[in-house]
């Protein structure tokens, strides 16, 4: 039977008095207030005075050590503590304090000795020393001995009603460790921390530890509340700031870097902060900065597992096996059962698109520590990313059993349960998994486009990735998001794990929000660049090439330039080449991610235009060979990054010269634009049109168009001009405007539909059909679109197109299914596909046996003789 805390009702309900030590006006209270408020120098001075005066022992000596430690003066703290010990005849009252200082500076043997002495002698804080001894043993791989120590805390709690706040918190921390084996004990840990805070509501360290528990159990909100309370009282509290930074990373916020740097402003030798900063740099693919920070962590604390772990991860990303082995061996010398190294490596590998590596590392994590649920979770999630669905599911089941709080695992298992409703369709090089409700419809288009993309990119990259490429299409964005990151709320439309892609179906978003054809093309491009480089391509390059590939695929595909991008360029907000990835991973303003995509695509476009696509392939070769960006540019272009930044700036200046000069001092969205600017002309034109003076609006709109011909926003002058011309009965110029507009905007459904109508009016049914085919990639669910396209295809003799559209209409589950089947049969028949026509017309007549037109078609098909694969009807 599980041993649990016997939490008496009285203990839970009755508020405990505040900390007696902080009451009154004693000097120790003044010092304590100063340290809690983050006035560390004042606290140091106050404690030192008390120590010198020989009063308030041992609280003053402990406080002095804490205050000095908080600002990174570890040597001073150790010296002061040892002096106090000497002054008090070798007392054990400071051994717990000394042990912590020794541990934090890497003297683990000295720390253990101190903790053991405090326990042996029975110091007043022996229980706290016992907790630290347990932790030290646990982080040294001696798990069984550590568990024995932690287990005793339950008995201590149950037998000792008068525990102090810090002792109650120690019980909570012990339960956190025990929770690894019995997750139900995390609830008891929460109760112990709550009780500790009732005993001393102002103790910042208890709040930080409590917050860390919440964060470890994936509850960012609760964690943030606790860290925030501490920071409100002490804006410089290193533990709370680091906790908040970890929370920001958890939430994907760009504040993580800044918060960690704030820790280092108070304590420049905080090993934990340096190691965490290193991990943040690794996420940014900034390996050099990561190594620098990892080194600082190790210098501050040579026994820092996090520091050595970050060092190993950096070496792995740098493809330096010797450095990796050194760091790895150091970790295992400190902790032979350390799975966190492999967990970190798995996570860094995942974030750097090395999914197979992530799988391998997570497996090694489980081998090291079979109770590392994080390893199971990382293994399961990354197995799914490389397409190993069944093993991934089994592993996640195991992860969830060990850690039922893991929201990523829970969400992903729920998602996998829903896979039953997905249907698989295949083409020569692709395997599609699409929701059964829309598989027939989307497959009709997706398979052909995917194969086209594969052929185009194979020729372009002179490379073919492993096949089949698996593409999962999710009708609910939340499911796609869970598939990608384990949580809802991801802003992306698609993701590539190499030869496994996932994306939103057009059903996941409102009409006009995205183009599912260009999104698929984009993700397939990633499969090529990731495969080409053995998953060692920087994100900016892979994204830039994917957007550029879109532009080569269809007119209008690949982001059009937005005024705010040009404004950001003009205002110098766009990052230099060296920091391109920051714009993707840690955006500094809301639109920076979109700007980063476009900027990266312009760089790739420039390289292709000026150096040829061969240069792009040579860049990819460089990354595959393990070079970093600086070395790649040196090898391929014989140029440094600064020179290339200048070259890109000139390219953008030239490419958008007109628009940049017409941008005015404020963007089109800002108020009161310069009347001569693009925004000014556009606004005046819109005003005139809005007040019924369409003819007067035309010159302004024409001028706006000339000033910014690439603008494809919803208020584009071309769109307004098209409307004016249509209303005035001038289909030719209206169509010309819409042709220009749809060549820039891939998402505007109505513009496509209006252009299709105009093309038909102008006697160009083929052009009309082509526009409608483009519109299918915006909204494939529009019945009227498919009906028009089917009709146009039939009229223009495009028998294949007619069959495709009739299939699409059938897949849209029409109410009149019999008629849809009959029309499909007729299209098949016209295309000479008599077997398919027969099957379809039988389907129609099965529903509606009296359907005369279908009966006549069936008879006609039979009169024409049997076709291959037709069974002969039984004679009656």
């Amino acid at each position: 039977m599980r041993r649990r805390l016997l939490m008496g009702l009285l203990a839970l309900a009755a508020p405990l008095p505040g900390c007696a030590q902080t009451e009154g006006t004693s000097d120790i209270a003044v010092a304590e207030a100063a340290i809690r408020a983050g006035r560390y120098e004042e606290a140091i001075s106050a404690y030192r005075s008390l120590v010198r005066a020989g009063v308030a022992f041992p609280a003053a000596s402990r406080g002095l050590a804490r205050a000095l430690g908080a600002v990174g003066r570890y040597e001073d703290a150790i010296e002061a503590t040892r002096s106090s010990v000497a002054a008090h005849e070798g007392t054990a009252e400071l051994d717990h304090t000394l042990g912590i200082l020794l541990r934090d500076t890497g003297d683990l043997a000295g720390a253990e000795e101190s903790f053991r002495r405090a326990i042996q002698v029975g110091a007043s804080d022996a229980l706290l020393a016992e907790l630290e001894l347990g932790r030290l043993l646990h982080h040294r791989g001696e798990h069984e001995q550590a568990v024995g120590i932690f287990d005793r805390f339950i008995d201590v709690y149950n037998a000792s009603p008068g525990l102090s706040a810090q002792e109650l918190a120690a019980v909570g921390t012990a339960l956190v460790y025990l929770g690894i084996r019995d997750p139900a004990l995390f609830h008891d840990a929460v109760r112990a921390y709550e009780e500790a805070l009732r005993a001393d509501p102002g103790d910042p360290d208890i709040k930080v530890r409590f917050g860390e528990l919440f964060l470890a159990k994936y509850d960012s909100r609760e964690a943030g509340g606790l860290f925030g309370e501490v920071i409100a009282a002490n804006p410089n509290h290193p533990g709370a700031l680091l906790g908040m930074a970890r929370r920001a990373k958890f939430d994907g916020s760009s504040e993580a870097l800044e918060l960690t740097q704030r820790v280092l402003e108070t304590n420049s030798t905080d090993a934990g902060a340096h190691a965490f900063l290193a991990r943040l740099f690794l996420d940014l693919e900034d390996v050099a900065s990561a190594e620098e920070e990892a080194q600082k962590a190790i210098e501050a604390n040579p026994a820092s597992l996090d520091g050595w772990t970050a060092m190993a991860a950096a070496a792995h990303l740098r493809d330096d096996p010797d450095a990796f082995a050194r760091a790895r061996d150091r970790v295992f010398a400190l902790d032979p059962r350390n799975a966190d190294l492999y967990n970190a490596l798995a996570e860094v590998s995942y974030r750097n698109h090395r999914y197979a590596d992530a799988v391998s590392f997570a497996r090694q994590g489980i081998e090291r520590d079979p109770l590392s649920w994080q390893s199971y979770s990382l293994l399961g999630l990354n197995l799914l990313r490389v397409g190993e669905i069944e093993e991934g599911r089994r592993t996640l089941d195991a992860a969830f059993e060990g850690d039922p709080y893991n929201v990523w695992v829970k969400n992903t298992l729920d998602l996998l349960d829903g896979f039953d409703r997905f249907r698989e369709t295949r083409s020569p090089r692709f395997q599609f998994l699409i929701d059964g409700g829309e598989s027939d419809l989307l497959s009709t288009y997706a398979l052909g486009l995917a194969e086209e993309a594969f052929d185009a990119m194979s020729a372009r990259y002179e490379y073919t990735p492993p096949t089949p490429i698996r593409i999962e299409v999710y009708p609910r964005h939340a499911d796609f998001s869970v598939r990608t990151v384990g949580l809802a709320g991801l802003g992306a439309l698609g993701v590539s794990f190499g030869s496994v892609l996932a994306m939103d179906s057009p059903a996941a978003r409102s009409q006009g929000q995205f183009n599912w054809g260009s999104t698929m093309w984009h993700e397939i491009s990633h499969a090529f660049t990731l495969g080409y480089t053995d998953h060692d391509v920087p994100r900016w390059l892979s994204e830039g090439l994917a957007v550029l590939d879109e532009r080569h695929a269809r007119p209008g595909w690949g982001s059009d330039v937005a005024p705010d991008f040009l404004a950001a360029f003009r205002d110098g907000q766009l990052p230099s080449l060296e920091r391109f990835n920051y714009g993707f991973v840690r955006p500094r303003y809301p639109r920076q991610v979109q700007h980063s995509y476009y900027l990266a695509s312009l760089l790739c476009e420039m390289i292709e235009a000026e150096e040829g696509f061969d240069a792009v392939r040579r860049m990819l070769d460089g990354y595959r060979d393990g070079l970093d960006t600086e070395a790649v540019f040196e090898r391929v272009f014989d140029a440094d990054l600064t020179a290339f930044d200048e070259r890109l700036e000139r390219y953008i200046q030239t490419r958008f010269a007109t628009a940049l000069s017409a941008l005015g001092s404020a963007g089109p969205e800002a108020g009161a634009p310069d009347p001569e600017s693009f925004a000014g002309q556009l606004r005046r034109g819109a005003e005139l049109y809005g007040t019924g003076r369409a003819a007067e609006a035309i010159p302004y709109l024409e001028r706006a168009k000339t000033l910014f011909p690439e603008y494809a926003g919803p208020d584009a002058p071309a769109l307004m001009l098209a409307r004016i011309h249509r209303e005035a009965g001038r289909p030719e110029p209206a169509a010309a405007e819409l042709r220009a507009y749809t060549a820039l905007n891939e998402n505007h459904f109505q513009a496509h539909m209006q252009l299709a109508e105009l093309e038909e009016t102008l006697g160009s049914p083929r052009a009309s059909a082509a526009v409608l085919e483009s519109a299918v990639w915006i909204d494939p669910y529009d019945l009227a679109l498919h009906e028009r396209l089917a009709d146009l295809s039939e009229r223009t003799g495009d028998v294949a197109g007619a069959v495709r559209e009739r299939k699409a209409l059938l897949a849209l589950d029409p109410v009149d299914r019999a008629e849809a089947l009959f029309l499909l049969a007729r299209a098949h028949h016209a295309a000479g596909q008599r077997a398919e026509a027969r099957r379809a017309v039988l389907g129609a007549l099965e529903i509606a046996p009296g359907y005369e037109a279908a009966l006549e078609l069936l008879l006609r098909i039979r009169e024409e003789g049997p076709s291959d694969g037709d069974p002969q009807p039984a004679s009656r």
Partner: protein
Amino acid sequence: MSRCLLWVIGQPVVLASVALMLGVGGARGQSTHLLVVSGLGGEPAYKDLFYNQATTLLDAARERWGLSDAQLSWLAEDQSSAPDRIVARSTRENVHSRIGELAGRVDSQDQVLIVLIGHGTQSGGESKINLPGPDLTASDLASWLDAFPTQTVAIVNTSSASGGFLPVLSRERRIVVTATRSARERNRTHFGSFFVNAFSGEGADADKDERVSLLEAFSYARLEVERLYSRDNRLQTEHALLDDDGDGEGSMEPGLDAGDGRLASRFFLAVERPAVAEQAVDDPELASLLERKRELENAVVDLRARKDEMDPGAYETELEALLLELASTNRAIRERDERP
């Protein structure tokens, strides 16, 4: 595709006999009577919507499905909006008296369709539709409909919160359609517009028998409602139900194979296709062909019912054989009809 045209390999061919087969007035034997009750609109937009729904349905019933004026009744909020057509204001009392009047003149085997259009609510545990004056409750209607002891009665309540009517009205020989599955679905409904479209427009005649059954109209409206919400990326706030087996439990997807749907599949505005039968009386050969056609159509229906028990290949072979004979018979009917 027009009901009067038959597309044969891309060419429209006028088929006189098919045209004659359309439901026209003067059905022999069984007749269908339609009572439309349109309630309070409140806002002008709803007044217009309810008016248009009612007139569209009544026009279709008369002009397309051949019901005579005597078979049609309309009670509405504002009699002055169409004094020639609205027989009385749609008060609770007038609805009661109109149902009583109708019960007094219908034949024992006739069918009655009552369509309620308006805003629905639930209060005091009672589902209601808002009428001028006191509202009409489900219990009111249930007791008044006892006046039809032998007739098949269909009640279609297109209002919001109409789901509460279903368990109260459910009986043997009774079809109950509600736009919502419970009284808790209180948002405005779109079911009514699509239900009316099923009779006035194209696309609801799923089995191509040139008539629209109540089951076909329900299925059409249900699917179009789903499509509307899906297209607009909105959470669907109305889920229509049909009950016709008297168990008080509505089905969202009724059908011939489900508990609900059989009675509704035989309920039409146009009850028969008498012109064909009348013509056949004078032409024994045509009568024989028509009889054979009916047999074959029934054989297809029977075969379809056994589909799940059969080998797929055998099923398809047998189906095709039946359909080929049906096609030949159909061609013979047409050629006979085209003879001078």
